[in-house]
């Protein structure tokens, strides 16, 4: 009984509630004629799509910069990489890897400036980050129009310039990861092996990084910057590294998302990507200064599971479209919950 209690405390009520709600949705599914195999396939797919953006939260949380509300910077870098890869007519796996490679320098530079800024506003990172993200998205709205792209699949048909809001990656690198070694069972179930392997690879690299000397220093900076400084660690440098890594992972994350989703979404599309990533890692049990790979995996599965299952199951049950409402309540509610926990961090 005692074990159960400590387990619940460790795991946290929000996770348990969401977990059981998810189970309930799966149980209900067959009754409203939603196919279970298709649902599971969907959840796996969406988990893979989003996991790397959730993973992008980890380095900044560990280094004490809080939740990366400025993930939009990474996402925009990824969009730049993706659109450039299309512009250069890169196809297949080359196109996908090319997109990541082309995004990297943008992530590096943007991340570096972003870090400069966040190092000036220690203690208020999250608020500032949010505004940085939003205003940068707006800035890019102008840039998408005036940048000299000319691949006909990407630009507005009537003007011959300016990028479209939605660009398909079909014919370039659509589902390049999803289809890699994919296992098909029956008509509805697909196991996206390549996608999950790719996510697994990044999670493993992050795990290795956090156990390296630099990763250890970064964690110490997040835990107590004064201690780290007294031990000869350059606090600002560690924070900068974490922010650059986070921005880069944001870029990789959105490219992975696009190859699975099928479209590059520009203009204001990046803004609604940020909160779900933040909410997912919090649902996974991360606090605003401690996060682990388990938090990423559990959080993404629970959150994306919820997003996948509610439209089909709840909508069929209630005959109304509730999914968006639930998504917003859960993600914002979770962020709110986590921020109120901030006080518990011992100093």
């Amino acid at each position, binding site marked *: 009984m005692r074990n159960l209690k400590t387990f619940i405390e460790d795991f946290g009520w929000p996770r348990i509630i969401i977990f059981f709600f998810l189970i309930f949705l799966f149980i209900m599914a067959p009754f409203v004629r939603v196919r279970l195999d298709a649902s599971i396939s969907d959840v796996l797919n969406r988990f893979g799509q989003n996991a790397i953006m959730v993973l992008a939260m980890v380095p900044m949380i560990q280094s004490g910069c809080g939740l990366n509300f400025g993930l939009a910077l990474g996402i925009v870098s990824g969009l730049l990489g993706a659109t450039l890869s299309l512009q250069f007519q890169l196809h297949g796996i080359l196109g996908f890897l090319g997109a990541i490679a082309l995004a990297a320098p943008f992530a590096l530079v943007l991340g570096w400036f972003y870090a400069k800024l966040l190092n000036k506003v220690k203690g208020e990172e999250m608020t500032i980050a949010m505004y940085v993200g939003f205003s940068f998205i707006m800035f890019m709205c102008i840039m998408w129009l005036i940048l000299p792209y000319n691949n006909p699949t990407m630009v507005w048909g009537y003007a011959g310039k300016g990028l479209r809001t939605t660009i398909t990656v079909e014919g370039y690198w659509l589902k390049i990861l999803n289809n890699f070694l994919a296992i098909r069972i029956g008509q509805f179930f697909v196991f996206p092996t390549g996608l999950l392997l790719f996510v697994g690879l990044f999670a493993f690299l992050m795990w*290795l990084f956090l*156990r*390296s*000397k630099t990763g*250890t*220093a970064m*964690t*110490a900076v997040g*835990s*107590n910057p*004064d*201690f780290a*400084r*007294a*031990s*000869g*660690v*350059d606090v600002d440098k560690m924070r900068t590294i974490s922010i650059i890594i986070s921005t880069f992972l944001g870029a990789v994350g959105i490219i992975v998302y696009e190859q699975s989703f099928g479209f590059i979404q520009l203009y204001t599309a990046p803004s609604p990507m940020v909160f779900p990533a933040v909410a997912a890692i919090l649902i996974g049990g991360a606090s605003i200064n*401690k996060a682990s790979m388990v938090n990423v995996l559990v959080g993404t599965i629970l959150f994306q599971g919820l997003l996948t299952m509610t439209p089909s199951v709840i909508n069929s049950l209630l005959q109304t479209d509730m999914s968006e409402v639930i998504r917003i309540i859960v993600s914002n509610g979770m962020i709110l919950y986590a921020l109120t926990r901030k006080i518990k*961090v*011992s*100093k």
Partner: protein
Amino acid sequence: MANGSPLLSIQHVSKDFYGNVVLHDVSFDLREGEILGLVGENGAGKTTLMRILFGMPVIAETGGFQGSVIIGGSEVHFSSPFDALDAGLGMVHQEFSLIPGFTTTENIVLNRESMRPSILNDVFGDRMSILLRDKMRERAEKAIGKLGIELDPDMLVSEMPVGHKQFTEIAREIDREQTRILILDEPTAVLTESEAEVLLQTLKRLASEGIAIIFISHRLQEVLAIANRIVVLRDGHVVKDTPNEHVSMRDIASWMVGRSLGETGARSEGRKFSDIALKVHHLWVDMPGETVRDVSFDVHKGEIFGIGGLAGQGKLGIPNGIMGLFPAGGEVILEGNTVPLNAPAKALAMGMGFVSEDRRGVGLLLDESLEWNIAFTAMQVHRQYLKKVLGGLFSQRDERAMEDLCKEYVSLLDIKCTSTKQKAKELSGGNQQKICLAKAFAIKPSLLFVSEPTRGIDVGAKKLVLDTLHHYNRDFGTTIVMVSSELEELRSICDRIAIVDEGRIAGILPPTADISEFGLLMSGAAMEAVNA
């Protein structure tokens, strides 16, 4: 001056905080027009005594006190500072309690403004009265006039020099008509010498008008200059209550510092050292509250060098500055090599270790395991406790080695913990301090700074910490620079002790030196005074 029955009489006052006795049977009287100099080391009980006098809630919350306080012949029981104010006590604090955006006048008459009722009073009460600025200004000028100084009644406090702020506070207490007893807690601490001089004159003048003054200061020459009577507190006891006649600074110093004289804890073995390990030349450190102005000293190889002095004089700034934690300048040479300042990593890499006085703030990763706490610095500075993976392509934390290291120190220093994976915040103060020491030892420093190693830990742990330092010094030849507020502790372990006063080294003494000499150095008496 001093005649008649006492205005204020403190009788057999004792006070303990949860069994820790801070005041023990303290009694003394204060007469009209008398200036009483109250002196004592940090922690002698001065502050607690003043809190009792003022009826601060903290006293009642911690179980009240024994004994009685008698003002004007009748016993008083203050339940809040307001009662004390009504009874005629005025207090000038060490930190200014003024409103920066208000003028001198407004601050002086604050909450006692001269007012005239307005029409709104009928509805909203007194709060809607109209201020009589002329009257207020008049009162302020009168109070300032009483002090016999120049002070612009219309100047904003934020624009004043510190001296004027201090005078404004005093004027505020004077303006209260019933004020008969004025208590000043270290009023000259923030003043320049000339400002302090004016202040002392002012106090004398106030005393001549019949106000009784309790003057708390660690600057003994000031106490000697103005006090009629001197009361010395030490460890909660009144060790001396004497008129200020034929009393020398040296006397006061030894009363203040000395346990019973003759019983010195010093265990100097008269060790001789030749090589110089650390040379510090004109060091300055900008550490808030512990500013180091100009400090030069040498530390010999293999010695334990003590740095003492009162709080806020800059002794803590010295190790913090040398280790690069606060902006510093000057020259520091470790075994012939210049130590770059403002660069903690370089200072550590050169073989210096530091145990911070701020255990929870700087010393520990409270939310991490003991293994992390002990091994972290060594890992970052010397790349230890890392293992190569894939033929040296990259390295990973060596958790096994970290655990072994931690276990070694847990048994060596007798650290009480449930496991090496326990979080540092769960340990007691003494055990946390041992973790801090272990962290410093783990980098195998040739020179170790320990700052306030026994602050806030119990007696048993204190002894263990000091023994450990002694052991490392004797058996491994680690040169140790120990900074502590506790003189006895320094005298028990150090080979030489430097006393820091106002950001400068006031003097360096052997631990066997007479206790009064330490007291003199701490009290801001210049070296010449000692030599004279």
